[in-house]
């Protein structure tokens, strides 16, 4: 049985349903991310696990104990907030000790645990400082230590990195993941940043409008998005309109045939949208890249290790990341190029949805 079980949870505020039929089983020690745009219900779902909101329907079970109607202070969870929420009147050491003090632990044990936690986040030298004397990154690390000190059953992180600047964000997320692995604590991490979710999660739950769109490993989510929403939200994607005919796995893009890995659903003559990751398109054939689309370079953006090309094709604009090579300068705007890709590198999206331009803008 799983360690944290969320089954059939819904939440409405008045007539407004923000979480619908949420089911998730989390294994002990697993790192799960809730990923989605703002207003998708991810934070509300996290707050229901924490006990700050009551589900309108469904159950939440932690380690075999039904906590659905238990108050937050009886759930033994640890929570880290976007706004740090350190107690301004207490020193770093007192902040970390707070949960232990509330639990009635003896002073000697508290002191030992505080030193241990501050050692873990490498801030032992700041024990007597006050929160306003710390940087944002340091405050958030203290908040993490404070949440972990009473040994909670589940660690809940509500966009903990959003208020930090880019460099700290990357280093702290690595630190969080390392700490989580070391302690083996079951963790839920809420974020709207797909790169963050992809880089540190065991599994990602992609949410939209209160529903789970897809739940899977970062590799699955990125490479096999199940819905158009997931495909558009996670990673950069360019879309090209194509046409399918019959039941085969071959479609045509402005007259050029393209072979897919799987047959396209449906029958008869019908429009399909093809989706490409920028790194799947190459300027040379080989390694099974049997498909080719011809287009004109609109722009070449030099990003260092890769050059991102914007290529106009008859079906739509494609983004292609090609490796930088000191020997060969990147194609210039106006040049005609042929983009090669393997059947497994392209996937067909069904149904109407975002226009190609929007998908590119959503990167």
């Amino acid at each position, binding site marked *: 049985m799983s360690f944290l079980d969320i089954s059939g949870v819904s939440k409405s505020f008045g007539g407004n349903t923000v979480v619908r039929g949420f089911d998730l089983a989390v294994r002990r020690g697993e790192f799960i991310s809730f990923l989605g745009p703002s207003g998708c219900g991810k934070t509300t779902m996290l707050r229901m696990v*924490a*006990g*700050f909101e009551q589900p309108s329907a469904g159950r939440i079970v932690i380690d075999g104990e039904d906590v659905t109607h238990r*108050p*937050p*202070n*009886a*759930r*033994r*969870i*640890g*929570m880290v*907030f976007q*706004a740090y*929420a*350190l*107690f*301004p*009147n*207490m*020193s770093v050491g007192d902040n970390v000790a*707070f*949960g232990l003090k*509330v*639990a009635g632990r003896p002073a000697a044990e508290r002191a030992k645990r505080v030193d241990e936690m501050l050692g873990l986040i490498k801030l032992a030298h700041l024990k007597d*400082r*006050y*929160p*306003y*004397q710390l940087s944002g990154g340091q405050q958030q690390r203290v*908040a993490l230590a*404070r*949440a972990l000190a*009473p040994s909670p059953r589940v660690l*809940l992180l509500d966009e903990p990195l959003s208020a930090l600047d880019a460099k700290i964000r990357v280093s702290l997320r690595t630190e969080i993941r390392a700490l989580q692995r070391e302690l083996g604590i079951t963790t839920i991490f809420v974020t709207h940043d797909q790169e963050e979710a992809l880089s540190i999660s065991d599994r990602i739950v992609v949410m939209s409008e209160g529903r789970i769109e897809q739940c899977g490993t970062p590799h699955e989510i990125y490479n096999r998005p199940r819905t158009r929403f997931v495909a558009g939200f996670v990673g950069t994607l360019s879309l090209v309109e194509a046409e399918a005919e019959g039941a085969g796995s071959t479609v045509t893009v402005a007259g050029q045939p393209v072979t897919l890995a799987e047959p396209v659903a449906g029958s008869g003559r019908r429009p399909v949208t093809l989706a490409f990751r920028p790194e799947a398109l190459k300027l040379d054939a080989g390694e099974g890249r049997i498909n080719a689309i011809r287009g004109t370079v609109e722009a070449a953006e030099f990003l260092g290790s890769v050059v991102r090309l914007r290529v106009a094709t008859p079906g739509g604009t494609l983004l292609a990341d090609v490796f930088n090579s000191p020997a060969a300068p990147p194609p210039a705007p106006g040049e005609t190029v042929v983009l090669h890709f393997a059947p497994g590198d392209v996937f067909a999206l069904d149904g109407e949805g975002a226009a190609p331009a929007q998908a590119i803008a959503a990167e």
Partner: protein
Amino acid sequence: MSGARLGPWIVVGLAALYFVLPLIATFEFSLSMLRGTWSFEAYRVVFADPAFRQTFGFSVLAALATIVLGALLVVPTAYWVRLRFPRLRALIEFVTLLPLVIPAIVLVFGYLRLYNSSSWLPFTGSAWGTNLLLVFGYVVLSLPYMYRAVDTGMGAIDIRTLTEAAESLGAKRRTILFQVILPNVRAAVLSGAFLSFAIVIGDFVIASLLNRPAFGPYLALIGQNRAYEPAALAVVAFAATWGCMGLLQLLGGRAPGSAAAPLRVRRKAIP
């Protein structure tokens, strides 16, 4: 350019005159008890009067009780209203402003009707009960200032997130209120306390009608019978009130981690 600077200074100067001139005049008058020379004779007489010490001590005690009771009433109320019943904020604010609209004399007559010695709750039946009633009255009088100060203080910190953080760490309501919220609105409670203090020291109506030996009625009595001593008393009361406020600031202002302790901040910031 100098003209543009002069304007504000004139306004400040006029305002200062408006406040300071009567004080200086009172002080000057209090020094002229002995004919033809300046002396502290009036002060000597005032301090020699045991009634002065008794009434002033009584009022200071009443003020401290008012501050403690007021804080215990206002801090949890403001906290709950902000946290759980934000829609009630306008109503609560209106209620706390009522003492500014309703004269204190109406309040006292209400008290006397409700709590007289033959009523169901005979507060005025004993000296202690009456003292209690007096403090209750002062709490009501200071409510507008106390509530505003505390509510503003709570607006300055994120009480919701702090409460949730404490809850997630296992804390119960009382712990959160006294260990997390109260210390962080200490500066606000203090500023409310200063005003409460001044109100209580200066009160005449409630103490007089409840017949308590407070400073206000004593001052009025002296004022009716003497010439120089009331001026000296006014100056003493003024100085003592400011002194007590300073003391409060000194004792209560040492909130760690707050902007209210600038000295500590500077010392701590140097590693």
